[in-house]
């Protein structure tokens, strides 16, 4: 800490702080245009000029000057104010000053400073800029006439997003921000640049002219898409969510969002939302009142042989109530996420760590020295967690290794090393890593005292690294090097995403990974551990609330089998769309067709809802109160931003009525249900809505490590066929993002990624419509030729109803397919 004097106040600041940061920490405001907390100092705008007595009263930029002991700083002398006024005059010289039609008005740093410093005229005269405005992009409008060249957009896109779409182009007075060769913007559309732009040069096009900043009600909430659990602020007017608002103080990610969170909010007020309950009469769904619909549902629930499937997007409170509904209906058969998407936690971690949660958190990423990302690219599945990885690697020099069956964005980071393996061989590879550690006597001291150590030793004794290397397509040296680097790192973290369509991210892989981490002793301390990132915003919550079958209950696949065979008479599906997202569409649809009564509560008339006997219109996350638990067990409180759409009711209310009709105890409010959760869920003790506040709280994870013997599955390779991998696209999450305009602008339909070599061999060119045929069926997808796939491997995202991949994909780790034009 150093001591210094700012504006006659004695203050202290850390040695690494700049004058600007020191002032900010002590509540002294220095005006600035080119600064953002997350970015490195740049010194472009010249607004933050201050005087330092030791520097003979020269005016120096506060944002790039580090503090030194005994500095005496003045931030607002008449000279400085004069200088700042001139800076503003110069900025406004070529600026269009079209505030009345500029969407930034009211939230514009330049406008605010001009007002604060009372710059009413301009001593200088010059022509205004005449840069062409980019109106064509569906998500980001670029008007470089308003740009003040602060460089924030280019810096955030490079430093945090690591895409590098924007940069300064041209020189001198002609300098502007643009894309390569001044072309169109074709990037990830995370909107980070829009969020940091201090003026109206970069604007969110979906929000264009919709409302003024000051007329929006700002409601803080949590993103309803993926398990990263980003905090976001919704801008609401007239009961409509019109935009998302940037708040650089929000969450661990300091307001950063991905394209789904920032531009995918339109599903909330979508025209397609269901507004009335519907009951099937004479073969068609007709609108009915809630009483009639619920009478019907209660009748069916009382009839017995009930089972339930749920989405992982309900709140924790709703999961508790849903379980109660099932209990009162006398059923133990309930599950979510097809039954296997959570098995890494509920089976894998349960036996390896004695708990169903990850012994690491997202903030650990930046505190680690060594990251190992396994299988799916964590950036594509959880983009904002991906930003953390970017920053860890680029700013902190964290070593990044990736073990995957395809290249991903993370592999492009400086120094990142990707070990590409044959699809389906990841468990063998992870076991080989453990084997190298064992053989090299690099195992942590405590490992030998962990339960199951000798069994592991024994089971790995017949594992030959050479043999694994040969079948996995990875060199022996690479395996040995990775294992040695991992065990030698002081702090090492394994990141591994799981989800509905990421087959192979299962309990076996989870246990193999856990073995590796326990063996190397990389667990239980800050910056080390295993982070299993579950897919949806409340996947971890669904697991924590126990919304999966106990020993004597049926899991999702058994429930569907039961529907097909007639043992399940009534199936209650809340928010899930199995027809599109569960493996094997034909089988799933046949089962749903067969079941006597299908009850669906949904936001939209999804493919599944369209088959239902009764459809209950439910509420989105923006209309309800409750808690979500993020992938790293951050429990966060959400509050309604808008009133309920139409006659829709939250699942909380629906389950509440059902509980009372079934003779149970009616829940008073979600707060009381949460206090019940706090009293009986491990890790949630002491939590309450008030205690969670805006930032939420981590539910601590207690681990009891144990080694579990995991056998690698045999190779299933089929000659002459390609390995089909499924997973998440960067722009989508689950099937809900189909109703978000932003994601659909960027990525409107399914596609098949294929290597150049395979494309050439099969004479396939870009955008050719391919028929992908597997043993279980076929689907038509457009070809996308990319360098990221290796020969013999193709990839497709699973989100789209229009070309639902589960027609060909049946849930096995690797689906072997043939391609036809």
């Amino acid at each position, binding site marked *: 800490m150093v001591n210094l004097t700012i504006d006659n106040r004695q203050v202290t600041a850390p040695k690494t702080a700049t004058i600007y940061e020191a002032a900010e920490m002590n509540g002294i405001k220095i005006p600035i245009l080119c600064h953002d907390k997350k970015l490195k100092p740049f010194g472009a705008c010249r607004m933050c000029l201050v005087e330092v007595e030791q520097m003979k009263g020269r005016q120096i930029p506060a944002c790039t000057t580090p503090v030194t002991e005994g500095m005496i700083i003045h931030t607002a002398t008449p000279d400085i104010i004069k200088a700042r006024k001139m800076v503003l005059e110069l900025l406004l010289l070529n600026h269009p000053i079209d*505030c*009345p*039609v500029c969407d930034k*008005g009211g939230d514009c740093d330049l406008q605010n400073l001009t007002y604060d410093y009372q710059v009413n005229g301009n001593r200088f005269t010059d022509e205004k800029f005449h840069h062409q405005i980019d109106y064509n992009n569906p998500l980001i409008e670029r008007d470089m006439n308003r740009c003040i060249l602060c460089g924030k957009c280019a810096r955030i896109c490079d430093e945090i997003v690591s895409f590098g779409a924007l940069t300064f182009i041209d020189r001198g007075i002609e300098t502007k921000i643009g894309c390569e060769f001044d072309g169109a913007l074709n990037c990830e559309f995370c909107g980070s640049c829009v969020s940091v732009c201090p003026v109206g040069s970069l604007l969110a096009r979906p929000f264009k*002219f*919709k409302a*003024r900043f*000051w*007329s929006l009600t700002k409601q803080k909430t949590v993103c309803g898409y993926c398990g990263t659990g980003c905090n976001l602020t919704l801008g609401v007017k007239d009961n409509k969510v019109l935009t998302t608002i940037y708040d650089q103080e929000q969450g661990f990610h300091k307001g950063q969002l991905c394209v789904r969170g920032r531009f995918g909010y339109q599903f909330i007020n979508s025209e397609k939302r269901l507004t009335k309950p519907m009951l099937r009469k004479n073969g068609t769904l007709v609108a009915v009142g809630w009483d009639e619909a619920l009478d019907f549902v209660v009748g069916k629930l009382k009839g017995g042989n009930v089972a339930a499937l749920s989405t992982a997007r309900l709140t924790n409170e709703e999961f508790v109530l849903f379980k109660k509904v099932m209990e009162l209906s006398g059923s133990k058969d309930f599950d979510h996420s097809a039954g296997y998407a959570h098995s890494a936690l509920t089976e894998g971690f349960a036996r390896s760590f004695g708990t169903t949660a990850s012994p690491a958190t997202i903030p650990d990423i930046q505190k680690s020295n060594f990251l190992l990302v396994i299988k799916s690219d964590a950036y594509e599945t959880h983009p904002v967690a991906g930003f953390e990885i970017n920053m860890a690697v680029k700013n902190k020099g964290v070593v990044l290794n990736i073990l995957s069956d395809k290249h991903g964005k993370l592999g492009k980071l400086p120094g990142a090393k990707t070990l590409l393996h044959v699809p389906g061989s990841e468990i063998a590879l992870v076991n080989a890593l453990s084997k190298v550690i064992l053989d090299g006597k690099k195992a942590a001291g405590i490992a030998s005292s962990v339960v199951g150590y000798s069994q592991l030793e024994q089971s790995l004794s017949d594992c030959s690294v050479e043999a694994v290397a040969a079948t996995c397509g990875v060199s022996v040296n690479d395996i040995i090097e990775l294992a040695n680097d991992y065990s030698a790192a002081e702090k090492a973290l394994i990141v591994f995403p799981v989800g509905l369509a990421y087959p192979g991210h299962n309990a076996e892989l989870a246990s193999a990974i856990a073995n590796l981490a326990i063996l190397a002793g990389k667990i239980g301390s800050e910056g080390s551990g295993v982070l299993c990132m579950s897919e949806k915003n409340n996947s971890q919550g669904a697991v924590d609330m126990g919304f999966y079958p106990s020993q004597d209950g049926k899991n999702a696949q058994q429930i569907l089998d039961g529907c097909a065979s007639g043992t399940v008479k009534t199936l209650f599906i809340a928010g899930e769309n199995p027809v599109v997202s569960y493996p094997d569409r034909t089988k799933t649809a046949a089962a749903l067709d067969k079941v006597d009564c299908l009850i669906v509560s949904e936001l939209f008339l999804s493919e599944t809802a369209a088959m239902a006997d009764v459809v209950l219109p439910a509420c989105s996350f923006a209309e309800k109160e409750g808690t979500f638990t993020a992938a790293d067990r951050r429990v966060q409180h959400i509050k309604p931003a808008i009133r309920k759409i139409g006659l829709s009711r939250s699942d909380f209310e629906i389950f509440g009525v059902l509980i009372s009709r079934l003779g149970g105890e009616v829940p008073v409010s979600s707060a009381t249900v949460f206090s019940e959760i706090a009293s009986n869920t491990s890790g949630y003790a002491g939590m309450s809505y008030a205690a969670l506040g805006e930032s939420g709280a981590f539910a601590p994870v207690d681990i009891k490590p144990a080694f579990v013997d995991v056998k690698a599955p045999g190779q299933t390779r089929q000659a002459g066929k390609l390995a089909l991998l499924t997973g998440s696209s960067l722009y989508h999450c689950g099937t809900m993002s189909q109703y978000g305009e932003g994601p659909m602008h960027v990525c409107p339909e399914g596609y098949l990624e294929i290597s150049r070599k395979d494309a050439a061999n099969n004479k396939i060119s870009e955008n050719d419509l391919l028929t992908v045929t597997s043993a279980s069926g076929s689907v038509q997808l457009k070809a996308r030729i990319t360098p990221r796939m290796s020969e013999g491997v193709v990839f497709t995202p699973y989100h789209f109803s229009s070309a639902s991949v589960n027609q060909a994909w049946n849930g096995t780790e690797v689906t072997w397919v043939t391609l036809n034009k």
Partner: protein
Amino acid sequence: MNPITPIINGLKITLSHLFKKPVTLQYPDERPNVAQRYRGLHALNVSHNKAKCVACYLCPTVCPAKCITVEAGEDANHDKYAEKYEIDMLRCIFCGYCVEACPVDAIRMTGQFELANFSREDFVFTKERLLEKK
């Protein structure tokens, strides 16, 4: 003072008025002379054959009666214009703040004061009705 004096004084004033020009008008036969700065019904100024209003939302923001509804739209040149501009005259208090707030001189107040009507809907002046009549 003599109690009769004030009464006499009062009657004198009354009497003097009998010989002055009356203040009242025989409305509607006689029309008042409306002052230039009178704040009557609003008009939207027109220039280049379209309303000058750029839908900046400053008038609905400043309006103390919250009776102005503006909805912005994007025209073919990607410019902002008022797709909807409505004033609910039943709520307007004729304060003139809207005129003062407008940065582009798009709205003014006319001398028209006869705003009586038969139904509530008729008091909502749409953009069409507000556009200045040439």
